[in-house]
């Protein structure tokens, strides 16, 4: 078993896990699942790529601004599409499924119009690079190490956050909204905060994925499903959980790729790469 597969798996898995984590952040607070999450990830990547090329900003500034932007978009999603539905009598039923789906459609198509269908490259942040360094049995690039490390850090930080007062308040609201209201916890404010944070993380996932996968409008659907896979396999609601199953799922793809007959292998690899670089939805 060549370790390259593990490396690719770990990095890809980290990105999916990040998407899963961002989904969880919203879920923990509101018990809903943002169907526009994949679009938010895609947005992060594309805004960062645009900022880097069009505005020629330094990498970290562009990344920060992009993540903030996506956070704001997520915040707006809650404000416009989710909170009004949830505050309806009876909890709004499953109206949020349709509204978040609608928001996803809007984001995808507006961005598609502005950016166009061609995938955009994001260079890795200095001083990291995507050039693989050989460590004997396997090769890993400094960027990949960076990604794996960052995601692990984010998950740890998030877990720590939930141990703080605000974090516990969020869990309290999800558990029992009325009881929390009686304790002067404002559920709306916390929902907005959760959406903002979720957007930050999702945007970050898109940015991190950029140097490896290309930023493109075609990303969103598969990312949403893979992020969900991550969250679901680990157990929705837990942040740490997406990591390990997702390292597995992230590895399983390259493993499957290697173990098939060469003809199929080539076709699959081409197809999955083209899935990432594919055109915007054929509107």
């Amino acid at each position: 078993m060549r370790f390259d597969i593990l490396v690719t798996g770990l990095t890809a898995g980290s990105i999916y896990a990040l998407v899963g984590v961002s989904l969880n952040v919203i879920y923990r607070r509101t018990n809903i699942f943002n169907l526009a999450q994949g679009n938010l990830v895609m947005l992060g990547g594309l805004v960062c790529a645009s900022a880097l090329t069009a505005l020629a900003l330094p990498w970290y500034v562009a990344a920060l601004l992009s993540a903030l932007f996506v956070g704001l978009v997520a915040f707006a999603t809650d404000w416009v599409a989710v909170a009004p539905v949830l505050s309806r009598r009876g909890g709004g039923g499953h109206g949020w499924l349709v509204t978040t789906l609608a928001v996803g459609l809007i984001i995808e198509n507006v961005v598609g119009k502005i950016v166009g269908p061609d995938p955009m490259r994001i260079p890795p942040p200095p001083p990291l690079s995507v050039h693989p360094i050989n460590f004997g049995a396997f090769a890993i690039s400094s960027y990949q190490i960076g990604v794996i490390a960052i995601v692990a850090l984010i998950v740890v930080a998030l877990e720590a956050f939930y141990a703080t007062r605000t974090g516990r308040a969020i869990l309290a609201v999800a558990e029992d909204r009325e009881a929390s209201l009686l304790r002067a916890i404002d559920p709306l404010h916390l929902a907005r905060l959760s959406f903002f944070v979720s957007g930050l993380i999702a945007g970050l996932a898109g940015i991190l994925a950029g140097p490896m996968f290309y930023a493109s409008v075609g990303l969103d659907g598969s990312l949403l499903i893979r992020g969900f896979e991550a969250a679901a396999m680990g157990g929705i609601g837990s942040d740490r959980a997406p990591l390990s199953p997702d390292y597995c799922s992230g590895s399983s793809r390259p493993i499957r790729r290697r173990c098939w007959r060469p003809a199929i292998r080539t076709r699959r690899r081409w197809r999955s790469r083209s899935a990432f670089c594919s055109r915007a939805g054929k509107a």
Partner: protein
Amino acid sequence: MAAADLPGDRIAFAAGAVVVLAAAALPWLLRGEYVLFVATQLCVYYLAALGLNVLMGYGGQTSIGHGALVAVGAYIAALLMVDGGFSFWLAFPLAMLGAAAVGAAMALPTLRLSAWYFALITLGFARVVASVLTEWSSLTHGFDGVVGVPPPSIGGHAFGDRDLYWLALALSVAAFLMTRNLLASRYGRALRALRDNPLAGTGSGVSLGRLKIQAFVYSALLAGAAGALFAVQKTVITPDDFGVDFSIFFLLVVVLGGLGRLHGPLLGTLTFFLLPELMSGLQSWRLLVYGVLLLIISLYAPDGVAGALEALRKRFRRAPVAINAPIRDAAVPKPRIVGAALIVSGVAKRFGGVPALDEASLNVPAGTIHAIVGPNGSGKTTLLNVVTGFYPIDRGAILVDGKSIAGRDAAAIARSGIRRTFQTPKLIPDLSVLENVMLGAFSSERASLPALALRTPFARREHDERAAEALRHLRFVGLDARAADPASEIPHG
């Protein structure tokens, strides 16, 4: 409703007849191939939207994969006719059955999963179907699609545009009538219970899992029919026709028309088809417009066009209509209740660290009334919940007439005749007071699904009997004057 002698029903019937006749006369009223094409397409989409409305609007199961079911129907019909040489009349039912099988498969995850997991699975499913259509090219012709689907023919006469339109219209009308009949039957009540108050359903003996699958299969049957017609109308189908936006389109149509409204699909499809006139230059913005529309409607008009019309109608409505069903009071002899013996022995139930029941025992002889008295938190309701199967027990035995019922599913226990009421009323706001009461008769009604769909005399008689009985009970508690009111408008509703 009981015996359709309301003036409102007569008007509705007359209006419906006029609409159908006008639609049938369309080829003579408005000339032009384009008009016929659009009209046929309207019928096709209407069929699919009808099915989705039953599933999503009435059953509360959000599916973002409905387009995939239409695709399955279209491909099965097309492949059978082109590659297999089947006639349309054979390919059509097979397409419906194929789509139904796929729909049932798609429904299986719903049994254990909550709604949004499920919505995501349907989304994934739509993508899988789209991929299969492209990848399995040895079967589906891949990107080239299926070309040259022949029109249906009877005795050598191939259907022209007009014949096809009439076929589509006839199928739409038939589907509408069947759906309406089913929604007015116990299945319609059970579906709404599934959507609004699952406990009410379980308490009445509705097996929610089975109902979900049934709703799915029904919506898939209609989708398959729509797909087959789609294939025949377009004569060329390719995987491109059935992307994820196709499923989203149906979602939009159903939401736009009004979820859970009988005429929602019709209004939605009609409204949607008027849009292209306004949208002719905006083809490439189509998805964006879908998204914006979906958002606006979900936020500001959650009941869609049908809901808005209904709200308007209510403003101008006179006093609520009373039901004039004949109440056969003394005529029906009340059967003597034999009952069954209930023995609860040594039952224990903990919730986490809290023992709600500890060595609870009860012996209730058949045909007697037994009262359980206790202070708050003493476990009375828990005991009730445990006996009726809503909570599993940790230890002990529950025997009815000597047979153990512990561990059995709550709906099954309800069906076997053991019923309970709830501390807070579990009402279905959308149904009338009478229909809420009739929900309780779910497991004792005998009419089968096909009988209900076709509204056979037996089904009608059974419905009237149940309605009369329900009305009797309402009269007993003094609510018969409010029988036709939606449950949301009475206290506690």
